[in-house]
């Protein structure tokens, strides 16, 4: 483990427990987001990693070494650090800013200059900017510099404290792409504090949801969307986001009807008609004795046959469109709807029939997902914050009981 945090506690002098038994193991290249309401202890926890704060009890190890036994100044030089208010030195040029940590580490002038050029390329900014001052750059450009400055001395772990909180949504998105790229291409490990759920779900490989100093849920974004640990998490994510996420996290097996009307090929036309009548359907799926899907029979086809003893196999339509039970709805919905069929059989990995998806069930999901989206477009006034507030109110209500 690159970073291991065990039984961390942080108690303030007034006896308030800011962080309560925090445990986390972080592997190399992970992107961990700490998310929670204000006062949840997320920033406090992050700041203990580079000893900007010291824990009351518990241990933090980096590469197996206890950081409490390390020189805090050396430790901080080995960990990237990005804060919300950018924290660029206003009296230094961009080049000087990028070179701060390399200079502290005693790199040669040539090596530093080379690194500065490399970093500004990484930030996708023109090299002429190296000689400008931070005040001459836009907020987004400043934070790009802030991000690459944290990598300038080849730090493995980068701590970020709500780095994009003050940026407009479009700039924020481009900055998110930048850090995502740094994590994926360079294998950097990020500990990222945010209160923006979209940001956390988009960037993180794992999300740590915190409330009142405790970890409420630690899991991948998908699993958090699929199984929110409790009502607090649901509120924090927001109903809308859960619905919108459905096509991407629900699998076909979760919306299919089980026990579809099916018949074996050796049965007769008479049996088929009886079954259709009793199940009140106009299509039957045909499976062999082992339950493997072979095709379907349609009422239209049956009408043309006069002999009621004809076996089903004779008029089975073998060109059947089916989907895998484990596939995600988002991936299959287009294909299903474009086929223009009313029902789609669902099979498992060995093509055994396990269920059926009706067009109605699909359309419901698609419309829910669509309805989730326009609602946020109508309210650009930060739906994220609204969610957090809702969660906070809810939380407050709980604790007062």
């Amino acid at each position, binding site marked *: 483990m690159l970073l291991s945090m065990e039984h961390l506690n942080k108690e303030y002098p007034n006896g308030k427990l800011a962080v309560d038994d925090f445990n986390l193991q972080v592997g190399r290249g992970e992107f961990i987001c700490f998310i929670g309401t204000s006062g949840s202890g997320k920033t406090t926890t992050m700041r203990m990693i580079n000893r900007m704060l010291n824990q009351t009890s518990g241990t933090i190890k980096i590469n197996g070494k206890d950081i409490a036994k390390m020189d805090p100044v050396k430790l901080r030089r080995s960990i990237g650090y990005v804060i919300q208010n950018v*924290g660029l*030195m*206003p*009296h230094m040029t961009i080049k000087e800013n990028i070179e701060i940590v390399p200079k*502290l580490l005693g790199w040669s002038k040539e090596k530093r200059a080379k690194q500065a050029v490399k970093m500004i390329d990484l930030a996708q900014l023109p090299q002429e900017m190296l000689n400008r001052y931070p005040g001459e750059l836009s907020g987004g450009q400043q934070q790009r510099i802030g991000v690459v400055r944290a990598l300038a001395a080849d730090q493995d772990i980068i701590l970020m404290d709500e780095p994009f909180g003050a940026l407009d949504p479009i700039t924020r998105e481009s900055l998110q792409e930048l850090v995502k790229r740094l994590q994926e291409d360079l294998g950097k490990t990020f500990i990222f504090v945010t209160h923006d759920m979209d940001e956390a779900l988009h960037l993180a490989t794992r999300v740590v949801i915190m409330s009142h100093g405790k970890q409420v849920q630690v899991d991948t974004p998908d699993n958090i969307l699929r199984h929110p640990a409790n009502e607090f998490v649901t509120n924090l994510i927001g109903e809308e986001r859960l619905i919108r996420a459905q096509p991407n996290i629900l699998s076909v097996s979760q919306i299919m009807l089980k026990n579809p009307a099916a018949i074996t090929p050796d049965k007769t036309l008479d049996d088929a008609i009886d079954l259709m009548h009793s199940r009140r359907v106009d299509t039957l799926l045909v499976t062999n004795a082992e339950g493997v899907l072979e095709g379907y029979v349609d009422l239209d086809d049956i009408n043309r046959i006069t002999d009621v003893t004809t076996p089903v196999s004779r008029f089975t339509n073998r060109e059947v469109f089916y989907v895998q039970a484990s596939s995600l709805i988002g991936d299959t919905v287009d294909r299903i709807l474009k086929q223009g069929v009313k029902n789609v059989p669902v099979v498992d990995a060995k093509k055994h029939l396990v269920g059926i998806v009706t067009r109605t069930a699909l359309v419901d999901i698609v419309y829910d997902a669509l309805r989730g989206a326009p609602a946020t477009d109508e309210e650009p006034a930060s739906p994220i914050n609204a969610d957090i507030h809702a969660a906070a109110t809810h939380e407050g209500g709980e604790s007062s009981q």
Partner: protein
Amino acid sequence: MIHFLQTYGMQLISKTGQHLYISAAALGLGVIVAVPLGILLTRMKHGANAVITLAGVLQTIPAMALLAMMIPIFGIGSTPAIVALFIYSLLPILRNTYLGMEGVSPAVRDAAKGMGMTWWQSMVRAEIPLAAPVIMSGVRLSATYVIAWATLASYIGAGGLGDFIFNGLNLYRSDLILGGSIPVIILALVVDYLLGRLEATVTPRELR
């Protein structure tokens, strides 16, 4: 005018030298004491008010009285004058240093520490350069005060351009009074201008 310079020219130069020496020594001491003290005060919130108030109280003692009070301790001559003027120079420098350091954005301080600067590195590379313009304007203000008040130092035998003025008053000769006060004014203006230039140089291009 020419007659005055012919008669007192040499004396004028040496008195101006004395005046400059007393002022520079007092201001130099003031900077050496007040700047570190001001920085120290930003680290101890509780003491800050008390110390700045005390410096303010010292500032209110009449200049003449303060100079006179130095005689029992240091005798007469330039030493008591330098000490008294030093005390006067403290407040503006102290207050501006304190305000300048307080004005450094917490984000800068946090970033400096978080990137692994030691306390000293953070001071020298980040905080003092950013506070420098404010500190310098305090030094400039002190310099003007000190040069003006150094005139009174003549009264306790420290010499300087005040000698001309006091002689002129005693002998009722306006040429001596003007011969002393005009150079003081010029001196104050020139020093203020030069320190102003210095202030502009230490101001980061970004903050101008």
